């Protein structure tokens, strides 16, 4: 009879992942979001280029509450991926590898991406 002898602890509410780990997961998640958003973005570009009526329709897709949320989500994913990517490049170049630098920069990216996304997404129009 197989017995489980090793302790297994998978309570997601109690596991305390280091902030750099959260950043890493979010880097992947944001990358996958951007990948999945590709056809929408290319379609949006094509629509906006198709003429003034198409341009207005493309703009309308990004307006309203739904449009704002879409803008915010895509901008967050883009900015998080970009900022976290810059952080990884700096770490590759041996900058900010030591504690507490790598932890501070992880917090900076985690907080900075949504703030910058809010700023660039603009108001609810």
């Amino acid at each position: 009879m197989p017995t489980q002898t090793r302790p297994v602890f998978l309570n997601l509410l109690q596991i305390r992942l280091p902030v750099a780990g959260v950043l890493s997961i979010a880097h992947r998640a944001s990358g996958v979001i951007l990948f999945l958003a590709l056809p929408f973005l290319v379609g949006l570009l094509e629509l906006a280029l198709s003429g003034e009526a198409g341009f207005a329709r493309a703009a309308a897709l990004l307006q309203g509450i739904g449009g704002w949320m879409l803008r915010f989500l895509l901008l967050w994913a883009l900015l998080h991926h970009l900022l976290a990517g810059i952080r990884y490049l700096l770490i590759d170049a041996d900058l900010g590898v030591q504690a507490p630098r790598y932890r501070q920069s992880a917090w900076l990216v985690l907080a900075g991406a949504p703030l910058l996304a809010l700023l660039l997404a603009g108001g609810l129009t």
Partner: protein
Amino acid sequence: MTARRLAGFRAWVWQRATAVYIGLFLVYLLGRLAVAPFDSAAALRAWLGGALLWVAFGLFALALLLHAWIGVRDVILDYVKLPALRLALLAAVALFLLANGLWLAGILMEVR
């Protein structure tokens, strides 16, 4: 052979090289959109159809497809262990990226 060319250290280097170009282009693009958003199809067309930007955007699209391929492939290799499912997903991702790339190429050809 072609898969090998984009594996291991080479993939790592390509991922970073494309990241630098994509990052630079994005900073420009986001800045451009924040400072002077396009207000008409004609303005957008004039911008994208300009020689310098047309080439820069084409390179951006190529870098993006390569970057996305390496990144999503890594995610699939990490999480999908079943060989048949892995192969099917990789093929779907490659097709998806190829289709988006051809679509973008068509748009670029049309705008110039």
